[in-house]
């Protein structure tokens, strides 16, 4: 195939930490359902059609559930129960009595009645119920929804989106997954992450892929490369190390003793983000002082040499704590949570202080999601009244990113959380992105804001770090060094790769890489231009 395309990059959202290369297996989209129609039959006949169909779908869901081994099983079992729910069927019958076909009646019942029950904080996604609705409608209309997936060989599936029935038939033949739709929290992402299958989701451009084309699923680079020749997985971009030490310190994000041990092996220069939620989420009551001290101490003592930056409790809006006052609003995660749960945070600080003394380690502490210098001062005063830790704050809201200069004398360090910051900057819900490319850390306006925070921090005598997914991308870490950031904190598995790339370039090269990224119109151009510059010395 002399005319075949090579090194074509398709961007999406990466899931997982390994890459895969294999031929594409394009899964045909299921036949589209016919539009809702009025019935030619009597309501009695339509009711019988519906009853037969939901019973059939229930049986097939139960059968697939029985064959599933992962969390798909629970979802399928719940859907199998709900498909024959009395109240749901009652709703559908009202539509049938108005003259609608059974297909239309069931579809309308699900969207009118079930949709309002699925709140943003529920474990289930409405997608699952939408799929259930389609299964019943397809069965009634005589359309097959069964998709044949390969069971032999090694393939990268290219598919509009994956349903639980699809993932239930996954075998080792599935080397990677590319979906045109979906997002970081869609069913496909959750299953692929759990099973360690590299995936790139929300990759609309993959519609151009044809059967048999070789695909590199480069989930770390959030892209798919068609027929790769020059381009490689983001991990294996082989930079030759030239410096004895990385340009800036590479610390690790840690949430358990195991993470701390992995980070030590990878020679991380301390812990840049110790998440403390593991101690609290799932607990029925607040962990005692002794329990907290023991757990913090175990992590401190396993952590790589260097400072340990602890983030105080950050309660996600979708997982409220039983023993804390927590609002379900995302914007209340920071200051609101802090003032509403002052005692909880004070007791956490006391436990951290005791664990610090027992371990003899250097501990810094920072708060998540604060939005103004006044809020930061409140936190800093709180910490200094009880401990002698260095105090800092995470920069996750655009409002605080723009007032870093005013933090002089209040905090000693800041740490930029790029995931939340890009969400706030562009006003996008991370779990349901309309334009996923705006959430990519290569987005030039995000890069610009990081540069401004770093410059303001330097002027104010404040240490500036970056944690979040941006800091785990080895190529992007070079850009961060060029922007004047003092350290990065990476996922434990990414530490050695980030270190290597930061040992491959002089500061002048990193500064140039940052300038190149800032000049690009969008994230994907920025990523491509910086990679070309660092790998080939080329300026596009």
């Amino acid at each position, binding site marked *: 195939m002399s005319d075949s395309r090579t090194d074509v990059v398709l961007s999406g959202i990466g899931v997982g930490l390994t890459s895969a290369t294999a031929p594409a297996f394009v899964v045909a989209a299921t036949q589209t359902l016919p539009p809702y129609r009025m019935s030619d039959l009597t309501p009695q006949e339509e009711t019988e059609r519906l009853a037969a169909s939901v019973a059939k779908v229930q049986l097939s869901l139960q059968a697939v559930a029985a064959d599933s081994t992962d969390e798909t099983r*629970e*979802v399928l*079992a*719940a*859907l199998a*129960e*709900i498909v024959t*729910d*009395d*109240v*749901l069927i009652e709703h559908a019958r009202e539509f049938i009595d108005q003259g609608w076909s059974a297909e239309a009646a069931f579809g309308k019942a699900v969207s009118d*009645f*079930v949709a309002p*029950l*699925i*709140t943003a*904080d*529920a*474990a*289930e996604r409405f997608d699952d119920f939408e799929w259930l609705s389609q299964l019943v409608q397809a069965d009634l209309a005589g359309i097959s929804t069964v998709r044949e997936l390969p069971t032999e060989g090694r393939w990268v599936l290219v598919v509009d989106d994956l349903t639980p029935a699809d993932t239930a038939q996954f075998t080792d033949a599935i080397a990677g997954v590319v979906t045109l739709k979906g997002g970081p929290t869609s069913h496909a992402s959750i299953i692929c992450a759990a099973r360690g299958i590299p995936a790139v989701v929300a990759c609309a451009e993959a519609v151009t892929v044809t059967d048999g084309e070789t695909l590199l699923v480069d989930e770390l680079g959030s892209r798919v490369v068609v027929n790769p020749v020059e381009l490689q997985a983001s991990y294996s971009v082989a930079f030759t190390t030239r410096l004895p030490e990385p340009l800036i310190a590479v610390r690790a994000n840690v949430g358990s003793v195991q993470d701390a041990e992995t980070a030590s092996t990878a020679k991380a220069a301390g812990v840049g983000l110790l998440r403390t939620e593991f101690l609290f*989420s*799932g607990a*029925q009551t607040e962990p005692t002082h002794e329990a907290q001290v023991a757990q913090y101490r175990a992590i401190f003592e396993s952590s790589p040499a260097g400072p340990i930056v602890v983030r105080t409790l950050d309660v996600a809006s*979708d*997982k*409220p704590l*039983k023993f804390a006052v927590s609002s379900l609003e995302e914007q209340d995660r920071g200051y609101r949570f802090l003032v509403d749960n002052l005692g909880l945070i004070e007791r956490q600080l006391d436990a951290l202080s005791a664990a610090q003394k027992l371990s003899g380690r250097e501990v810094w502490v920072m708060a998540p999601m604060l939005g103004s210098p006044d809020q930061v001062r409140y936190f800093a005063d709180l910490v200094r009244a009880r401990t002698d830790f260095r105090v800092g704050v995470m920069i996750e809201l655009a409002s605080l990113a723009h007032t870093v200069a005013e933090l002089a004398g209040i905090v000693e360090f800041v740490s930029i959380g790029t995931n939340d910051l890009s969400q706030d900057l562009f006003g996008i819900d991370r779990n349901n992105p309309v334009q996923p490319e705006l959430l990519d850390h290569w987005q030039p306006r995000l890069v610009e804001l990081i540069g401004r925070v770093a410059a303001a921090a330097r002027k104010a005598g404040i240490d500036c770090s970056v944690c979040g997914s941006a800091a785990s991308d080895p190529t992007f870490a070079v850009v961060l060094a060029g922007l004047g950031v003092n350290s990065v904190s990476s996922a434990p598995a990414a530490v050695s790769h980030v270190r290597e790339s930061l040992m491959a370039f002089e500061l002048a090269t990193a500064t140039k890489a940052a300038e190149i990224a800032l000049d690009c119109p969008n994230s994907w151009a920025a990523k491509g231009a910086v990679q070309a510059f660092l790998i080939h010395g080329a300026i596009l």
Partner: protein
Amino acid sequence: MTYTASVTVTDQLGLHARPAAQIAKLVKSAIDSNPALVVTVKHQSGKQAQAKSALMLMALGAKSGESIEVQVDGASDEAAAALVAEIQGLLIE
């Protein structure tokens, strides 16, 4: 015979689809062997639901940490207490 007991939702995510479906399934199978059985669940908001409908249970909107009242009609106290204990078991995550 009316038996009433309070159970606590300790599943972190509240009374969401999965436990709701499990409770509905349990109650439906109990009704199969005792057609006189009626199980009603009341939430502090004043809403109530037939426990044989997973969707109605979800519609209660019970959050983690809240109590819900389970009322069992048409069964012996002994059978009702056993059923309530099973329901409580499904609400623990």
